[in-house]
C-alpha cells in the first residue's frame, strides 16, 4: 500500500498575455451600461432592404465624373504620401531628438480629417488642404516607423566602417540597404491607407470619391453608391497590377494635375486665422486677463471636452474588444490548417472588402440605417479593424508548422494549436491598433455621435476656431497617452 499522502494539486494561473486580454474585456464590460447602443431608426429593415437592392443592381453615374473622382482620389493619396515620405524620412534620421519625437507624436495623433478641417479654415477648398491633410499626419507616422525600422537593422556593418566614413556614406552603405525592403513594404502598405484617407476627405468637400459617395447616399441613390464602392474595391484589389516600379514616377508627376483647381487661396484669411481666429477669445478682448482665460478653458473642459473624452473612451474601449473578438473569429477563415485553398477564398474576399472599407464610411452608412447611437460606430470600427487584424493574424498563423500528430478536430486544433501560437502576435497588433481606434472614434463624432469630434465639428460650425483647436489638442493628448500606455503593456504584459 502506498501510504504517502499525495501533494496538493498545483493551481493554474493564466499567462500574462491572456490576463491582459481579460482586463481589456472587463473594462469594456464596465463601459457597456454607460454607452448608448440603441437602434433609434424607425424601420431599419426597410432601408437595409433598399440598400441591398442597390448592391445587387450597381449603377455607374456619369463615367467622366467617376473617372475624375477616382483620379483625384489617387492624386491626393500619391502626392500626400510622397511628401510625407520625404519629410518623414528626414525626421526619422533625427528621431533621437526629443523635440522631433514630440512634434511627430503630436502631428500623427491628430486625425487627417481634423487636419483637413483646420486647413479648410484658411486655405479653403484649395488642393493644398487635401494634400497637407494627408501629408502632415502621415509624416509623423512615417518618421516613427522608419526610425523603428532603422533601429532594428544590424549595427555591425556600420561599426566595421573605417573612421571618417561620414554620416551620409555610412547611411547609404550600411543602414539604408539593410532597411530598404522593410521601408518599401511599409510605405506600400501606407499608400493603401493613403488612398482610403483620400477617399474620405471627400466628405469634407474635396473632389475625391467620398464627395460623390455622400451626395449619392444622402439622396438615396444606393445603386450609384454600390457602383462607386465596387470601383473603389477594384482599384485597391488591383493595386499590384497598376502600381509598378515604372508606373510610380508617372503617378507622382501626374498627381498635381488631377487634384482639381478648387478655390483660390485668400491669403488674408490665412493671416487672420493665425492672428485672430485661433487666439482664445478672452485674450482677444482689451481687458484680457489670466482669470478670464482660466474661466474660458474651464467652461470648455467641463461642457465639451469631458463629455467628449468620456464618450470617446467608452466607445473606443468597447470597439477595441469587439474588434479583437472579430479578429479571432475571422483569422481561421484564411488559415491553411482550417480550410483548403478553395475554402479560404470566401474568407479572403470578405477580409479584403471589410478592411478596404474605411471605418468612417462604414459608420456613415450604418448610422443612416440604425440611427444615431454608438452601436453603428462600434460595428463599423470592429468590422474594419477586425478584418485588418484578422488578416494580419491569419497571415501570421499560416507560417506555423504543425506537428504530424496535431489535433484532428478543427475546433481542438484552433483552441490548442493555432490560437495560443497566434495570440502573442494578435495581442501586439491589437495594442498597435488601440491608438488608431481611439483616433477614429474621436473623428466619428463628426457624424453625430457625441465623441470629441462632435464638439470639434460644432465649434467649427459656430466659427469658434479657438475652441475647436483646444478640443483637437485635447484629443491629441488622449491619443498620445494611449500610445504610451499601449507600449508599456507591450513591454510588460
Amino acid at each position, binding site marked *: 500500500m502506498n501510504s504517502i499522502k499525495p501533494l496538493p494539486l498545483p493551481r*493554474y494561473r493564466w499567462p500574462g498575455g491572456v490576463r491582459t486580454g481579460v482586463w481589456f474585456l472587463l473594462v469594456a464590460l464596465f463601459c457597456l451600461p454607460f454607452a448608448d447602443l440603441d437602434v433609434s431608426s424607425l424601420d431599419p429593415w426597410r432601408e437595409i432592404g433598399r440598400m441591398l437592392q442597390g448592391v445587387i443592381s450597381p449603377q455607374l453615374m456619369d463615367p467622366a465624373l467617376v473617372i475624375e473622382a477616382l483620379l483625384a482620389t489617387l492624386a491626393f493619396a500619391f502626392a500626400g504620401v510622397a511628401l510625407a515620405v520625404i519629410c518623414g524620412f528626414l525626421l526619422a534620421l533625427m528621431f533621437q531628438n526629443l523635440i522631433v519625437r514630440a512634434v511627430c507624436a503630436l502631428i500623427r495623433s491628430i486625425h487627417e480629417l481634423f487636419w483637413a478641417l483646420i486647413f479648410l479654415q484658411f486655405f479653403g477648398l484649395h488642393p493644398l488642404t487635401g494634400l497637407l491633410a494627408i501629408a502632415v499626419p502621415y509624416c509623423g507616422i512615417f518618421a516613427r516607423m522608419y526610425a523603428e525600422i532603422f533601429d532594428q537593422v544590424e549595427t555591425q556593418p556600420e561599426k566595421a566602417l573605417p573612421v571618417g566614413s561620414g554620416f551620409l556614406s555610412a547611411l547609404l552603405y550600411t543602414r539604408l540597404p539593410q532597411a530598404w525592403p522593410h521601408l518599401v513594404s511599409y510605405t506600400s502598405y501606407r499608400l493603401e491607407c493613403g488612398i482610403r484617407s483620400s477617399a474620405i476627405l471627400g466628405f469634407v468637400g474635396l473632389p475625391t470619391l467620398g464627395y460623390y459617395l455622400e451626395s449619392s447616399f444622402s439622396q438615396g441613390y444606393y445603386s450609384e453608391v454600390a457602383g462607386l464602392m465596387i470601383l473603389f474595391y477594384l482599384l485597391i484589389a488591383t493595386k499590384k497590377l497598376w502600381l509598378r516600379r515604372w508606373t510610380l514616377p508617372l503617378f507622382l508627376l501626374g498627381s498635381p494635375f488631377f487634384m482639381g483647381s478648387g478655390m483660390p487661396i485668400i491669403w488674408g484669411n490665412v493671416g487672420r486665422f493665425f492672428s485672430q481666429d485661433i487666439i482664445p477669445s478672452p485674450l482677444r478682448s482689451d481687458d484680457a486677463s489670466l482669470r478670464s482665460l482660466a474661466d474660458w478653458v474651464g467652461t470648455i473642459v467641463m461642457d465639451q471636452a469631458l463629455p467628449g473624452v468620456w464618450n470617446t473612451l467608452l466607445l473606443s474601449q468597447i470597439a477595441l474588444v469587439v474588434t479583437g473578438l472579430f479578429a479571432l473569429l475571422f483569422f481561421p477563415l484564411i488559415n491553411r490548417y482550417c480550410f483548403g485553398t478553395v475554402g479560404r477564398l470566401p474568407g479572403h474576399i470578405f477580409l479584403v472588402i471589410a478592411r478596404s472599407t474605411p471605418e468612417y464610411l462604414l459608420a456613415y452608412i450604418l448610422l443612416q440605417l440604425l440611427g444615431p447611437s454608438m452601436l453603428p460606430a462600434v460595428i463599423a470600427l470592429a468590422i474594419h479593424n477586425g478584418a485588418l487584424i484578422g488578416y494580419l493574424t491569419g497571415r501570421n498563423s499560416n507560417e506555423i508548422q504543425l*506537428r504530424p*500528430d496535431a489535433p484532428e478536430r478543427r475546433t481542438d486544433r484552433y483552441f490548442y494549436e493555432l490560437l495560443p501560437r497566434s495570440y502573442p502576435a494578435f495581442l501586439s497588433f491589437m495594442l498597435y491598433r488601440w491608438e488608431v481606434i481611439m483616433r477614429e472614434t474621436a473623428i466619428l463624432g463628426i457624424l453625430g455621435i457625441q465623441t470629441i469630434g462632435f464638439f470639434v465639428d460644432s465649434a467649427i460650425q459656430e466659427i469658434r476656431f479657438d475652441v475647436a483647436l483646444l478640443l483637437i489638442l485635447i484629443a491629441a493628448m488622449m491619443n498620445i497617452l494611449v500610445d504610451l500606455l499601449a507600449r508599456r503593456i507591450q513591454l510588460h504584459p
Partner: protein
Amino acid sequence: MSLLAIQSDALGYGDQRVLGPVSLDIRAGEHLILLGKSGCGKSTLLNHIYSENRSECALIPQGLGLVECLSVFHNVYMGRLPRYTVLHNIRNLIRPAQARVAEVQPLLERLGLADKCFSLVADLSGGQQQRVAVARALFQDAPVLLADEPVSALDGPEADRVMSLLGQNFSTAVITLHDVDRALRYGQRIIAIQNGELVLDQPSGRLTASALNEFY
C-alpha cells in the same frame, strides 16, 4: 503476429529521394530501434509509418511539436484531445479540470517535472521540453509508440530513465536512436539504414556494439 505492415515505394521530399522501397512488418510486443547517421532517412520512415497508422500510434516528433506559449499541463493533455468533447477541451483550456490535472501530475512526477505543471513550455530548458513531449505521448496511451530521438537532449542517467519508462508503457515501439549501446540495451530488434536502404534487420541479441558501429 504482425501489428503494422509497412509497404512503400521510394519516399522523399519533392524530387529528392531519401529512402528506397521499404517492406517492413512490425510485430506486437516488439521494440524496434532504427539506427543510422543523421539524414539517412530514419525520420522519413518514422513519419511515413505514422501517416499510415495514425489511430494506433503516439508520436514524439523530432521537433517535439510543443505549443510553447501554453503550460506543460495543456501540452500533455493534448495527447487525449480526441477522447473528450470539444466543449470539455475548451473549458479545460480556460480552467484546467481538477480530474485531468490529477491524471497528468503523477506522470510529470515520474519524469522529474513535478513542479512544472503550470509553467509555460517556453520557460523550460531543452531537456525539460523533451520530457514534456514524452509525457504527452505517455498520456495518449496508444498501443504503439513512434519516437524520433526521444532522449537526444537528456544526459545519460536521465535518458536511461526515460527510455525504460517508454519501454514499460508501450508494448510496441519504433524508436530512432543514434547511440549504439542504448539501442542494444532497449531494442529487441534493430534496423540499420544506410544511403536510403535498410541494410540490417536483426534481433539485438545477435549483435554487438562493434558490429553496429560500422554504420556510423
